[in-house]
């Protein structure tokens, strides 16, 4: 996938877009690693709860809240990573050989649509998150502020919007997908 089909006359712009794309990939990578570290944290919490219960005969009331907290981070920060590496499932019925012009337009529209969608979801979620912040809602057992759960989702959606938009720029300037 690394053959630019038509390099434009603006090598500087071309390089800048590529660098931007590279930076976005790095950022999503860092977030994905942070999220997966949280997932390992969730594993530790659940295992500790089991051991504590079987051996100590006690229960660890906050285990569910903590697990949800970690998984929320893992899932939210994995989404931009999946956009950035093209891991999202697509159906490739026609292959790339036929309807080239048509699919060129589609290929440009897909990341742009993705960016618009993620931005819209961010806008919707933002409103709801602010409502929860205003009420000071907290999780059922450990009373973790719900806004923290929302921060994971909001940052994941914002990052996904940026990733998709940079993919769109990259496609327009370099003709490269993913």
């Amino acid at each position, binding site marked *: 996938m690394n053959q630019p089909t038509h390099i434009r006359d603006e090598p500087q712009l071309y390089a800048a877009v590529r660098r931007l794309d590279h930076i976005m990939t790095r950022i999503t990578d860092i977030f994905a690693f942070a999220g997966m570290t949280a997932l390992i944290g969730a594993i530790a919490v659940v295992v500790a709860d089991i051991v504590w219960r079987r051996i100590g005969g006690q229960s660890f*009331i906050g285990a*569910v809240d903590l697990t949800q907290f970690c998984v929320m981070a893992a899932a939210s920060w994995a989404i931009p990573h999946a956009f950035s590496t093209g891991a999202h499932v697509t159906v490739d019925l026609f292959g790339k050989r036929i309807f080239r012009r048509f699919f060129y337009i589609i290929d440009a529209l897909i990341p742009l649509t993705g960016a618009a969608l993620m931005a819209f979801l961010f806008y919707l979620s933002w409103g709801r998150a602010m*409502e929860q912040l205003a009420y000071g809602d907290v999780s*059922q057992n450990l009373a973790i502020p*719900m806004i923290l759960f929302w921060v994971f989702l909001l940052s994941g959606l914002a990052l996904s919007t940026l990733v998709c938009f940079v993919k769109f720029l990259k496609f327009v300037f370099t003709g490269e997908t993913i």
Partner: protein
Amino acid sequence: AEITLKISHYLPPSHGFQKDFLEPWAKQLEEKTHGKVEVKIYDATSAFGKIDRQADQVRAGVIDMAVGLNGIPRDRYPAASIIEMPFLVKYADSGSETLWNLYKEGMLGSDYKDFKVLALFTHEGGLIHTLDKPVRSLEDLKGLRLRTPSPAVSAMLESYGASPVGLPPSAIYENLQKGNIDGLVTTWDLVNAVKANELLKYHTDAGAYVAGFYFLMNQKKFDSLPEDVRKAIDEISGDPLVAKFGGWWDKWEAAGKADAVKHGNEIIKIDDKTRAEWKDAVQPMIKEYLEGLKAKGVKDPEAIYQRAQELVTQFDTKYHAGDK
């Protein structure tokens, strides 16, 4: 009809909330306004059936009225949560009247501000349901793993040496069956809904706690209605409505209790003397809980608890003097 009002709640359409409470209430309103008002009810299966969002969607004006649980999301109505203190309320009628009177007397502070409050109510005193370890005395609770409905009940169980476990209703059956939990603290209504009577053997009826519920309306929407409609709503809400919950809960609870009897389970009745002992044992926890409410903006929690106890005694005498 020229006006459509939307009511939502979080229970399935077959539940008593819809069949006995909301549908007849809606019909009454339609009749009183001579068809000027039409009411649409949204149950748990609809887009507006999420338990944690009933009050929020009324405030946002997406829904006009809603019935919900005070405790979810937690800490929204800290003053009203005092009604959920262990061994305070035994009967749904006294509990509902008490909560409603606390509100009318202005004791609940800013809990329901910005809402038109149509009714506040509680359920019937919850029970301790267990698999094969009967709970006849406080000592029996030690070391039991019990599913808990609320932070207040969790604190109570911990103070007795039991381990509270938080589980969604859908996970109760499987966890009982595997013996992951020894039992649960809840109403007959929920035990019946999750078909747990076939696993449980003992039910300790101690009037251990109640949960509070609200029936709220969007204040702006109410103010925007024509005068005759507002009058009609007022006539069928508040006092006359709150008075009906005792009878309704008797009916809703009876089904679950009958099912337990059918399964040959033992129902352990705790006498008032023992109940008072249990209540004494939990006083330090109650004190701590009330103290904690101050940080959540409740000015004088002790006074509310005091008044609640007076009201409960008053209504218990009124409704249940001849029970024993």
